[in-house]
């Protein structure tokens, strides 16, 4: 308080009394100031006995503009919302931060991250709790605090991978590259939880060294840092004679037991594990190891190679055997008498069936083809189950390929080879690989083979084009699709019945539910209250009303909102446009209106249904000029009523005020017409504030 001098006596001793709000000179007693403005917090008592501070909280970073009612209404709302969002976020961040024991600096940084995210519209479509958790975790990573994503997900009870996803998106959008996680950060935290007492520091240091050793041995890439820490802590605890079981460590570190064991075994494999405790503390081995998964991979590779070699050897041996077998067989065939006629017919059947099954053992269900296939299989010295197209292909290759492209060979192999080729990505030279493997051995199969060769070649070449064409036209290209095989995928009649029975039994609950649902819908339909689908219609957005006077605004609002169902608004509109002209046209409609208006005007029993049918002369002189004036304005009035009621509205307010009480009985004619037009205004007022009369009517809506 700047000490002032008293005006009367010039003294400087001035007493300021805050409670009275006075500044008084102590020398002469002159009151220098009265009603001093104080800036103290005042409290008011609220209902229920509680007391609240008077005033509003204004957020520190809000722009501080007051929302203006009227014109700037919507902009005001927008800013408020942003401020609210930020305030909410700040609150949530503080809550979560305190649960994690983060300091204020981190929380502020997290809030900044949140603001950035908000500006980039990243909060849309995501749970706000997720976004906040991601911001917090980002801070943890940049600051290097020992908080795991798992902790955050514990607090929120959310899947850690979902949080992780949000976090990754956030870090990408904000272009913040969080440094990679160092398992060393977690050691002190876990050590704390494991309660090592005084030796906490020693155990931590040992564990740290272990982790660093693990890092150099490439055990930490691609692994959860907590797992490594767990293993390190376990070992170091044992080293310092603490009996910490695996279970305890698992509870603290939150990894699985088997993971811990795995890490321990991996560590065992490193040369460091061979050192004694003292040696480890003193010496650091210079050599480094390959990562354990890499060594595992190498082992697998070696095994695989061994297998391949064995396989090759086996194949070589088999080849030799086959050569001998083939020679023997050819000899036999030459000796065997060739049956024509019946056998040929039989053979042809077999051929068709075989092509159906396409030489894969799984489909071997038919007896006829069994024989054929088995013969083939025996010929090649293998089991039926091993007979694959690949094997055949291999064997084909070994035979003198291209020799004797005799027609008979084609037809049988056509289908198979087509499939082979299609699978192999469309080979060129359709006829190239027609080794006469099967037919030449087992006798000529006079199938429709001579056609095969050119067809296959053209198909192979035209394969791609055909496929594209088929796709566009929508027709199903049956190229290479084996109808017979497809048949296998469909059940026949009896099977369908069995399956239907089984399925019904299996899904009886679901079917019951469906039936109940349908029954409910049917019932509701009958009752007529069936709602198709409860869609949340986002409330119809109405354009802001622009009006120059309050009455205009009210009138417009009424038009839009249609508050009362008793009032025929269309007639009201007509009223304003052309009250005098065409009374006949308007006669029927107003006939309806008075009755509708009746309940609202219960206190005015003497209401003659004049409104528009009455000639103007009966109306009071007061209104005549206004009403006759209106038709002249009609052409200009393309916009609805506003102009007209505006004219009428001006003198009306005065009369409205006058008639606000139930005093109107005497002024029958003129005032009632007045009231007709005023009716909307009056009822609007009632609805908005008054409610003195007409309560029964309006509130039904």
């Amino acid at each position, binding site marked *: 308080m700047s000490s002032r001098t008293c005006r009367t006596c010039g003294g400087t001793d001035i007493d300021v009394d805050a409670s009275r709000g006075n500044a008084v000179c102590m020398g002469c007693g002159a009151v220098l100031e009265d009603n001093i403005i104080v800036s103290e917090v005042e409290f008011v008592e609220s209902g229920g006995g509680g007391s609240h501070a008077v005033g509003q909280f204004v957020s520190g970073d809000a722009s501080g503009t007051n929302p203006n009612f009227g014109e700037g209404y919507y902009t005001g709302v927008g800013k408020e919302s942003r401020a609210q969002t930020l305030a909410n976020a700040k609150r949530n961040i503080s809550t979560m931060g305190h649960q994690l024991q983060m300091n204020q600096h981190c929380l502020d940084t997290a809030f900044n991250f949140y603001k950035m995210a908000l500006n980039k519209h990243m909060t849309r479509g995501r749970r706000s709790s997720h976004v906040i958790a991601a911001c917090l975790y980002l801070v943890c990573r940049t600051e290097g605090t020992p908080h795991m994503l798992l902790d955050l997900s514990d607090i929120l009870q959310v899947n850690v991978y979902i949080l992780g996803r949000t976090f990754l998106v956030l870090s990408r959008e904000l272009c913040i590259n969080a440094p990679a996680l160092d398992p060393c950060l977690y050691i002190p935290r876990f050590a704390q939880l494991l309660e090592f007492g005084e030796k906490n520091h020693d155990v931590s240091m040992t564990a740290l060294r272990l982790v660093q050793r693990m890092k150099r041995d490439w055990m930490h890439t691609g692994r959860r840092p907590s797992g490594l820490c767990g293993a390190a802590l376990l070992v170091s605890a044992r080293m310092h004679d603490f009996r910490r079981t695996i279970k305890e460590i698992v509870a603290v570190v939150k990894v699985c037991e088997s993971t811990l064991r795995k890490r321990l075994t991996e560590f065992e494999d490193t040369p460091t594990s061979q050192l004694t405790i003292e040696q480890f503390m003193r010496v650091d081995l210079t050599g480094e190891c390959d990562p354990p998964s890499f060594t595992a991979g190498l082992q697998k590779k070696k095994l695989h190679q061994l297998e391949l070699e064995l396989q090759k050897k086996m194949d070589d041996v088999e080849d030799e055997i086959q050569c001998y077998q083939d020679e023997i067989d050819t000899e036999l065939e030459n000796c065997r008498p060739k049956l024509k006629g019946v056998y040929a017919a039989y053979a042809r059947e077999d051929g068709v069936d075989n092509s159906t099954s396409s030489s894969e053992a799984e489909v071997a269900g038919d007896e006829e083809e069994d024989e054929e296939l088995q013969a083939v299989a025996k010929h090649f010295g293998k089991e039926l189950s091993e007979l694959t197209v690949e094997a055949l292909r291999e064997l084909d290759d070994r035979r003198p390929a291209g020799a004797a492209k005799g027609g008979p060979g084609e037809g049988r192999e056509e289908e198979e080879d087509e499939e082979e080729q299609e699978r192999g990505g469309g080979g060129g030279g359709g006829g190239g690989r027609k080794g006469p493997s099967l037919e030449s051995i087992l006798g000529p199969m006079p199938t429709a083979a001579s056609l095969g060769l050119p067809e296959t070649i053209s198909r192979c070449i035209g394969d791609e084009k055909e496929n594209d064409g088929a796709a566009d036209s929508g027709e*199903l290209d049956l190229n290479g699709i084996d109808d017979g095989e497809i048949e296998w995928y469909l059940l026949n009649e009896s099977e369908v019945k069995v399956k239907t029975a089984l399925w019904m039994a299996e899904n009886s609950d679901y079917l019951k539910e469906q039936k109940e649902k349908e029954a409910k819908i049917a019932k509701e339909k009958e009752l007529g209250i069936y709602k198709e689908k409860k869609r949340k219609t986002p409330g119809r957005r109405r354009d802001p009303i622009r009006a120059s006077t309050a009455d205009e605004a009210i009138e417009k609002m009424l038009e839009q909102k249609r508050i009362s169902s008793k009032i025929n608004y269309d007639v009201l509109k007509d009223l304003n446009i052309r009250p005098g002209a065409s009374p006949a046209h308007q006669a029927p409609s107003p006939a309806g209106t008075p009755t509708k208006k009746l309940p609202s005007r219960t206190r005015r029993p003497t209401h003659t249904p004049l409104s528009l049918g009455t000639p103007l002369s009966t109306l009071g002189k007061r209104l005549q000029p206004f009403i006759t004036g209106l038709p002249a304005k009609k052409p200009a009035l393309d916009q609805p009523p506003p102009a007209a009621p505006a004219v009428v509205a001006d003198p009306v307010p005065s009369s409205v005020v006058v008639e606000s009480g139930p005093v109107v009985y005497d002024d029958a004619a003129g005032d009632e017409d007045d009231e007709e037009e005023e009716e909307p205004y009056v009822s609007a007022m009632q609805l908005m504030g008054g409610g003195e009369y007409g309560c029964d009517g309006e509130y039904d809506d």
Partner: protein
Amino acid sequence: MDSSNDEALDIIITNVVATFRTRCHLNLRTIALEGTNVIYKPEVGKVLMKLRKPKVTASIWSSGKIICSGATSEDEAKLGARRLARSLQKLGFKVRFSDFKVVNVLAVCSMPFAIHLIDFTKKNRPIASYEPELHPAATYRIKHLKATVQVFSTGSITVTGPNVQSVATAVEQIYPLLFECQKPRYN
């Protein structure tokens, strides 16, 4: 071309996912009851149908949209899709085969060296991301190819992309980056 390496890298395509439309409404119950190898999921509203020959699994919706996955090459995917359409045709639906499109291709590839993921992530900062708490691999997204490469510390990588060509290009692009960050071998 597998540039700048002596041995050729084997890119093995393990999965091709394709979609197509049958342009007609399908009654899932009929399919479920009359087909072999089908699983009906009424809660979701689809039928899973598994073919043996090209080993593919198809999800069939009643709108006629079908997703076919499990094939090992684009042609195989197409063949499987056509087979599927054919079997649906046999069931009595007026099926037309249209809008066949390969949507996703997954391939694996193995580098002959191990990779230091943290270095790799540091060098390729915004494009690569590595979160050991979440996933053991570093993810590298190639935007213009729309392909994603997941790099494991053992040197194996998996590549997913919209078609086989993009997958091959992605491998070629990423090879030099991985080569820089390889772990020195000790044995």
